[in-house]
């Protein structure tokens, strides 16, 4: 233990506050900017105090959108993003849980081979395989659909690997006790393994949700129909769309709204999430 030292404490706090300020400041600016009328930004000076137009700005982005620039109201885009992120999260979790379960608890031919194949895909993120993946999705007619948005992103080597490591720490006697107790493999998975992994699931849920929410390149490629635009690409369209100056106050309002769902998910899962990262159930 470091001894309690008044000046040391003070210094530590100054450094911490400084660090927090650096992270918080852009967020603060975004929130402030979203409360000003459109003219404010043309003067080239960023205001640091809230303006009068908060309600109006948020109402505009949520309900009307910028029809002239071709972006729909963001409520629709928020919903698209949410559906996509949830589909990716739930899909990733169920597939990786099941494949880790298979790899750890079943003896089948080429088990180790399949594990390494899954492991290898860690090295192939969407950006690397984007052209062939696009071709496949296009051939399957999944452009402009939720299936096309989420399915190519669903397989997850990371989650499979993490669950495998966790399952390997679960004592084998538990599985044997369950067998003696008359539980088949899937019952053991549902009754014993899933509840034991709940903290890991929560942690991965948060990580995967944010991963899905933040997808940019993939939705940009495969959606041409505004009905399937996600919020992250929507922001980009608002900045570059149309011939006029970007309407920064509306962009900022959108940014703030886009940042909300991940924050809500973290808050909702926080208790389990922190537990899952720091604690191992004995």
């Amino acid at each position, binding site marked *: 233990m470091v001894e309690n030292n008044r000046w040391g404490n003070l210094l530590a706090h100054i450094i911490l506050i400084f660090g927090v300020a650096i992270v918080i400041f852009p967020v603060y600016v975004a929130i402030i900017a979203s409360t000003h009328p459109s003219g404010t930004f043309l003067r080239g000076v960023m205001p640091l105090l809230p303006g009068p137009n908060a309600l109006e700005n948020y109402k505009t982005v949520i309900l009307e959108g910028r029809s002239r620039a071709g972006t729909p109201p963001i409520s629709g885009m928020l919903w698209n993003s949410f559906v996509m992120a949830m589909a990716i999260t739930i899909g990733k979790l169920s597939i990786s849980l099941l494949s880790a379960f298979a790899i750890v608890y079943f003896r089948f031919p080429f088990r180790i081979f399949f594990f390494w194949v899954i492991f290898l895909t860690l090295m192939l993120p969407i950006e690397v395989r984007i052209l062939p993946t696009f071709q496949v999705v296009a051939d399957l007619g999944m452009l402009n659909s939720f299936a096309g948005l989420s399915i190519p992103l669903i397989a997850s080597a990371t989650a499979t690997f993490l669950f495998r490591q966790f399952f390997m720490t679960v004592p084998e006697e538990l599985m*044997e*006790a369950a*067998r*003696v*107790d*008359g*539980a088949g493999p899937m019952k053991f998975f549902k009754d014993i393994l899933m509840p*034991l992994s709940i903290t890991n699931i929560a942690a991965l849920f948060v990580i995967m949700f944010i991963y899905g929410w933040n997808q940019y390149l993939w939705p940009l490629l495969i959606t041409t129909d505004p009905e399937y635009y996600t919020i992250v690409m929507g922001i980009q369209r608002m900045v570059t769309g149309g011939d006029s100056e970007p309407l920064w106050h509306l962009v900022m309002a959108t940014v703030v709204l886009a940042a909300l769902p991940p924050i809500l998910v973290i808050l909702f899962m926080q208790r389990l999430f922190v537990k899952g990262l720091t604690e191992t*159930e004995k």
Partner: protein
Amino acid sequence: MASITMDNLHKVYTGGVRAVTGINLDIADGEMIVLVGPSGCGKSTLLRMVAGLETISEGTLHIGERVVNNLEPADRDIAMVFQNYALYPHMTVFNNLAYGLKNRGFSKAEIDRRVRDAAEMLEIGAFLDRKPRQLSGGQRQRVAMGRALVREPAAFLFDEPLSNLDAKLRVQMRVEIRQLQKRLATTSLYVTHDQLEALTMADRLVVLNGGQIEQVGTPMDVYSRPATTFVAGFIGSPAMNMLPADYLRSTQASDNLAHLPQAADLIGIRPEDLALETPGDGDLSLTGKLLLLEPAGAESHLHLKFDGLHENMIIRLPHVPSVIEGQALSFTVRRDNLHPFDGATGKRVS
């Protein structure tokens, strides 16, 4: 309630390791059989074969009337108590006990009745709502027992259930398990490496070594007439002293050894069969130098060096004698208490 019959059971692991070779054993209904042996002797493997957790490479296994070789553990009507208890950590004690019953489709009322009965029997009724991690080692052991009890199975299988407990609790649980088993009269197979547990709990003892049965018998049988030098050395603490027969023949009046078979070239003497008395008619007398006196409360262990003998002898006396280390001491052993063995085969000769 059922008997268990093992007919020429073999276990060969992939890679050719033979863990169990040719086990034949009949366990009567309601009998408590203890499998004992050193680590790696195959006792746990044999138990797990009976449980259905290890496949049987060769031979047939009957539980009751049925051949169960290819049945899942759940279909064999057995219950198992694991060494590390294997309680489901996320379930309450009640649910731990109830899980096996739920899977078998018992009614809620029946589950409730059975769990409460078992909990009362094991005095864990107060903990039914707790999770396993909130329990002490002894309490977890009881819950593990309870999980086996509620099922009312044909046979209990115990895999070193007491080895994670401290010495005092172990003695207490040993007594309780034995009483419970006698009361329920359920056929039981109990694996341990602790010979005291084996001797005190068993109706019959099975001593295993290298995947084979060395001896089967009641504890007193096995103790008083060990069939092999391995059993002689394994059962009994301190272990039986082994002397070359030639050494005895050179130091004793030949009349006293006349009853020993010619084939016996190794003689075993239990540490407690040697006494500090004047030899009577036909008794053997041995004189050696005291190396170390170990007082152990009610008894004492004396380590002696005999001239011309490579290994030290250990003698157990039911008191602490007033002797000093380095002193020469004479011991008497009755003729009947010599255990003759054939040194080459390790078998008892009679």
